[in-house]
C-alpha cells in the first residue's frame, strides 16, 4: 500500500523478472484479463494504478513471450500495439495543435475498461452465490398435473429449433472436407479484433504503425495489415468508424464515428 501516490506519469518500477515468468498466457482469457491481473499486483485501487507501469509490464510480458517464440493470439498483439501507443502519448508532451487523444484520456479509458471487467466479475460471483433454484431453494417436488392453458400443445423452443437446424446442416457436410490451416486474419476476424480494440475509443488511434511493431513474422504482418485495412474500409463504409491519413504513407488514424449507432 506504499505506492498509492503513483499517478499515470510515475516512473514505473521495472517489472521484476520472476513476476513475469510466473505469468502463463494460457491461464488468461484475453489481454484485458491479463492486464487486470497485472493491475491487481500493484495492490492499489484500480482508480490509482500506474497505467504507465501497467503498460510497461504488459509490453515486457509480450516481449518475453515473443523471445520464447510462443504463438500468441492476435488480441494480445493488438492490445500491445494500443498500449505502445498509449505509452508514447503518456511520455511525449502534447502539442497544442494535436487532436490525437491525450495519454490521460487513453489511460482513463483503460482504467474504465478494467474497472468494468472487474465489476462484471464481482457481479457474476454475487449472482452465482445467490440462493439458487435446485441448489438452495426448491420447487414443488411432486408437481401435480393441474390443467394450465398453454399457448400450444406442442412444445419446442427457438433454441431447440436452431439447434436442430444447425446439427442437420452440419451432418450434410462431407466428412472428408479439410480446412487448410489458416495463417491469415480473415476480414471477419480483423474486423472483430478492430472492433474490440477501438470499440469505445472516441479518439483517433494510429493503429497500423503500432500493430506493425508487434507482428514480427512478415507473412503475418502482411495479412494482418491487408485484412485490417480492408476491414477498416468496410467499417468506414458502414458508418461505424472514420479514417484519416494526414500525409502520403503516413500513419492511418481511425476512430469510432461520432454519435453512431445506439441513439439512432
Amino acid at each position, binding site marked *: 500500500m506504499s505506492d498509492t501516490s503513483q499517478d499515470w506519469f510515475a516512473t514505473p518500477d521495472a517489472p521484476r523478472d520472476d513476476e513475469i515468468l510466473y505469468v502463463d498466457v494460457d491461464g488468461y482469457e484475453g489481454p484485458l484479463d491479463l492486464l487486470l491481473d497485472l493491475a491487481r499486483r500493484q495492490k492499489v485501487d484500480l482508480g490509482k494504478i500506474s497505467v504507465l507501469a501497467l503498460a510497461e509490464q504488459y509490453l515486457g510480458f509480450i516481449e518475453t513471450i515473443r523471445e520464447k517464440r510462443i504463438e500468441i493470439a492476435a488480441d494480445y498483439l493488438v492490445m500491445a500495439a494500443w498500449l505502445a501507443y498509449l505509452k508514447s502519448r503518456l511520455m511525449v508532451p502534447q502539442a497544442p495543435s494535436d487532436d490525437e487523444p491525450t495519454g490521460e484520456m487513453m489511460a482513463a479509458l483503460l482504467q474504465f475498461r478494467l474497472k468494468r471487467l472487474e465489476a462484471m466479475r464481482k457481479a457474476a460471483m454475487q449472482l452465482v452465490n445467490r440462493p439458487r433454484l435446485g441448489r438452495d431453494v426448491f420447487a414443488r417436488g411432486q408437481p401435480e398435473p393441474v390443467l394450465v392453458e398453454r399457448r400450444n*400443445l406442442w412444445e419446442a423452443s427457438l433454441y431447440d429449433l436452431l439447434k436442430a437446424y444447425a446439427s442437420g446442416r*452440419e451432418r*450434410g457436410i462431407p466428412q472428408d472436407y479439410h480446412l487448410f490451416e489458416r495463417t491469415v486474419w480473415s476480414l471477419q476476424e480483423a474486423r472483430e479484433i478492430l472492433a474490440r480494440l477501438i470499440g469505445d475509443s472516441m479518439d483517433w488511434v494510429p493503429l497500423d504503425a503500432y500493430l506493425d511493431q508487434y507482428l514480427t513474422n512478415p507473412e503475418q504482418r502482411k495479412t494482418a495489415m491487408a485484412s485490417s485495412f480492408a476491414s477498416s474500409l468496410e467499417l468506414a463504409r458502414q458508418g461505424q468508424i472514420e479514417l484519416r491519413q494526414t500525409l502520403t504513407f503516413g500513419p492511418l488514424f481511425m476512430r469510432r464515428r461520432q454519435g453512431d449507432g445506439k441513439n439512432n
Partner: protein
Amino acid sequence: MTDDPPIGADFDEHGEVAERNLRILEAILFASADPLSPAEIAPHLGEGADIPVLLEQLARRYAGRGVNLVRRGDRWAFRTADDLSFLLRREEKESRQLSRSALETLAIIAYHQPATRAEVEEVRGVASGGGTFDILMQTGWVRMRGRRRTPGRPVTYGTTEAFLDHFGLESLADLPGLEELRGSGLLSSRLPPAFQVPLPFDGPLRDDEDPLDPDDRGESDPVE
C-alpha cells in the same frame, strides 16, 4: 380462515422451536419428490422434535386450504384438496415434444421456404416419413403454400403466423443468419467456404409457384 392460523396456543416456552420445526417440515415435504416417513424427516429437525405431533399440527393448518397435507400409509405428502380435483388435468391434454426429425424438418422448412418435400429431404440427406409432415401440419406451424411449377408440381411448404408467434419471432428475418449461428456456437466454425444459410421467404407466391386449388389437399403426398 384468517391470515394467521391458530398458532397462538403454540407459543409457550417451546413455541419458537416448534414454529421453526414446522417451517422446516413444510419446506421438506414441499420439495420432496416422494411422500416422506417420520424416519426420513427426523434427520432434518432438531433433536427431540416430536414429529408425529408436528405432522398433525401442519396437517391441521392446511385443512380446508387449496392444498392439504395427507397421510398415505405411514408417509406424508402435500396434495391438491379433493374438492378441487376438477382442476386436475385430463389425460388427452398432455403436451407433446416434437421428435428430433420433426424439429429438424420444421427448421429446414423455416429457413429454406418455400421448400418442397424433396428439397427438405435433400438438405436433411434422409427421406422424411410422410408422418413428419402430417405432424407439422397438425402443429399449425407449417402450411402448404402452393405448387412448384416443375414436373410433378410438388407442393411447396412454408411457415405460418402461429409459427412466428410460438417461437417469439417478429418476422422470419429474425431467424439468425450464418454468422450468428456460428457466433453463438450452434454451427461449428469449421465450415466449407461454400456453406450458406438461406434467407427465408414467406411473402406472396413466387414466380415459380402456382396457387393451391381450394380443394387441393396436397395429393402428391403418399400419406393422406
